[in-house]
């Protein structure tokens, strides 16, 4: 019987070896790919098409983003019409379809800056670009498991903003102005939007240090002035003079809140977010206590610039450290004390940025929870 036993032993051993070898083959190759450069060398182009893909220009925020993109294109000595606009109107399907169409048209000779509309859409967009040999930089939306360094050179960079910290700081300014007591209401963005969630969390974090302030209510106002006006009217009916402070998720909401307060003859401190020119004026007039400027002009320009300079080969993304591939955008606080100075420096004359200083104003590597 021993030969049967030996046979079984031999078979088991060889199968184990085979499995081990197989496993090494797979992981080893993957490991090599992880540590070494991508086996497909990225090709660069002399005159890539430069494109920005975004929601639409109706929204002042996106208007600023795209004006930055245009300023960058002009800095190359081109006309601003040389920037191709892909407008997704809030549809991820259209966003992806437009990118694929442009990839086909340009044969992959493309430097693309994009907000993919929602996070899950970032992967198919990036993969389509990488496959076609185009260079892509993303803004705002991507899933946490998608990283530029997994795609060699072609997925150049991702920029986003963490709003929790800045929103917490504006909340502290508000809560201090309220004398650390009373009631605060929050009017938020579209409930499922990440910035809307983060900005409310910022307020909640700040409230932990102010036990005498009650969060009376928090309702979404969909980033919309008219909606915010109505929601604030409802709050005034429900809470009346209990409201001694208003925390708004952005400037557009703040405008509606101010008008609702004005109609009632109420004077309550409010803080907003985004630093739109009109809000900065209102801060200077003392009607808004504080807002946060995220410099969308720079963000829009530098995202296009990163994709372009990688595409023409001025730098090699895969040789850059991680904090140059995924990073937070800048945040600047604006209060009545510095509103005028800010206005002169940033709004009355839009600064001429050095679009090759890719990471100067950025705010460190993106951290995942």
């Amino acid at each position, binding site marked *: 019987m021993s030969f049967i036993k030996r046979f079984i032993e031999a078979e088991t051993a060889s199968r184990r070896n085979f499995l081990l070898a197989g496993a090494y083959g797979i992981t080893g190759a993957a490991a090599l790919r992880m540590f070494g450069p991508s086996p497909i060398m990225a090709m660069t182009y002399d005159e890539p098409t430069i494109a920005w893909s975004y929601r639409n220009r109706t929204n002042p925020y996106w208007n600023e983003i795209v004006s930055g993109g245009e300023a960058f294109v002009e800095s190359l000595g081109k006309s601003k019409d040389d920037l191709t606009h892909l407008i997704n109107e809030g549809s991820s399907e259209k966003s992806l379809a437009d990118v694929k169409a442009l990839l086909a048209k340009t044969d992959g000779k493309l430097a693309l800056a994009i907000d993919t509309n929602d996070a899950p859409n970032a992967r198919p967009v990036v993969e389509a670009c990488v496959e076609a040999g185009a260079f892509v930089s993303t803004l705002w939306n991507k899933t946490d498991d998608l990283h530029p360094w997994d795609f060699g050179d072609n997925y150049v960079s991702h920029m986003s903003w963490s709003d929790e910290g800045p929103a917490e700081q504006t909340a502290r300014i508000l809560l201090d102005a309220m004398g650390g007591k009373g009631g605060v209401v929050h009017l938020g963005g579209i409930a499922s939007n990440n910035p809307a969630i983060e900005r409310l969390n910022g307020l909640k974090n700040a409230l932990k240090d102010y036990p005498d302030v009650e969060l009376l209510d928090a309702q979404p106002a969909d980033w919309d002035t*008219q909606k915010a006006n109505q929601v604030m*009217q*409802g709050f005034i009916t429900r809470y009346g003079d209990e409201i001694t402070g208003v925390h708004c998720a952005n400037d557009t909401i703040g405008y509606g809140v101010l*008008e609702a307060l*004005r*109609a009632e003859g109420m004077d309550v401190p409010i803080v907003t977010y985004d630093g739109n020119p*009109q809000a900065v004026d209102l801060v200077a007039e003392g009607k808004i206590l504080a807002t946060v400027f995220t410099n969308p002009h720079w963000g829009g320009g530098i995202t296009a610039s990163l994709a372009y300079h990688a595409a023409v080969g001025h730098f090699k993304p895969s040789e850059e450290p991680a904090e140059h591939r995924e990073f937070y955008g800048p945040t600047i606080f604006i209060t009545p004390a510095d509103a005028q100075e800010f206005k002169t420096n940033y709004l009355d004359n839009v600064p001429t940025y050095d679009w090759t200083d890719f990471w100067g104003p950025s705010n460190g590597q993106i951290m995942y929870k």
Partner: protein
Amino acid sequence: MIRDIIVKWAPLLVLVFLVLLFPIFEWLEDFRAGKDHIYLLDSRFFSVRNASRIAVAATPGLMVAIGVTFIIIMGSIDLSMEGSVSISAVIFAFAFLALGGTLLSWAWLAIPAAMLVGAGIGFVNGLVHVVFRIPSFMVSLAMGFVGTGLALVLTGGDRIRIEDEVFRSLLTVRWLNFPIMCYVALLALLVAWFIQSHTTLGRNFYAIGGGEELAQASGLNVARIRVLGFALAGVFFALGALMAVGRIGIAETATGNNFMFISIAAVVVGGTALWGGIGGIPNTLVGILIVYVITNGMVVIGLPSWLQDGVLGVLVITAVVLSTSRKSISFVK
């Protein structure tokens, strides 16, 4: 017969029901908290101050809903309101600032200018609809996009602030607790009601909605009345734009947002039938109040806002089901 009476008065009953319903929630809340609360008397919702808030919120929507009521009575539909409101608001703001920036100068001309713009868009709507025989919903939807696009081109995505104290007194000055804009809206409402019930044009809308072939055979110039109807609707859309700017002090491309759902929901919930001939301006007033009482009441009793849209949706469907006898319709498309 009884069914007819119920259908006729249902919208008003719903409104009364809602107005009495929200204070119950307030009473319950205070009761649970152990506070003294006399039903209705201590209600924050059921108060003059809140009535004026609801009225202020509802005025722009009411103007737009009145406009589309005329069209729906004819059995057509006008979906251009969002674009019409945006472009009228933006042109008003530009003209207002260019002509002096205060109502006490030539800038008042911006008001008729905005109404002309609204009428113009409506006129084109009607003309394309009648001449090229394209369904009104398609023409007006497309014209709405054109309006939004134009507004965007004019503003470049910026918002225009109207700071004039005289114009803003629409909101800031109150007579008997209600801002002036509510009285202006009331006046417009009376004019619309007069057009509907005391002019040939108004009666002809019903004639077309009740039976277009019959109206045509009786010698009515249906095409002309349709075009006039769309132009009239455009004027009311522009009035809605003026109210919206008066309320917020800002004209922008987004000024027209959300008016489509609100106005059509108001017309339908008020009991005006979508195939024409039934309903009218008083129904629309009740309808818009239902819509805004719900919006306001939900916030006042602290319900999440996603419920508001859901409740409105259910109300719209219920209203359509109630307002018609299904058996008399052979096709639904």
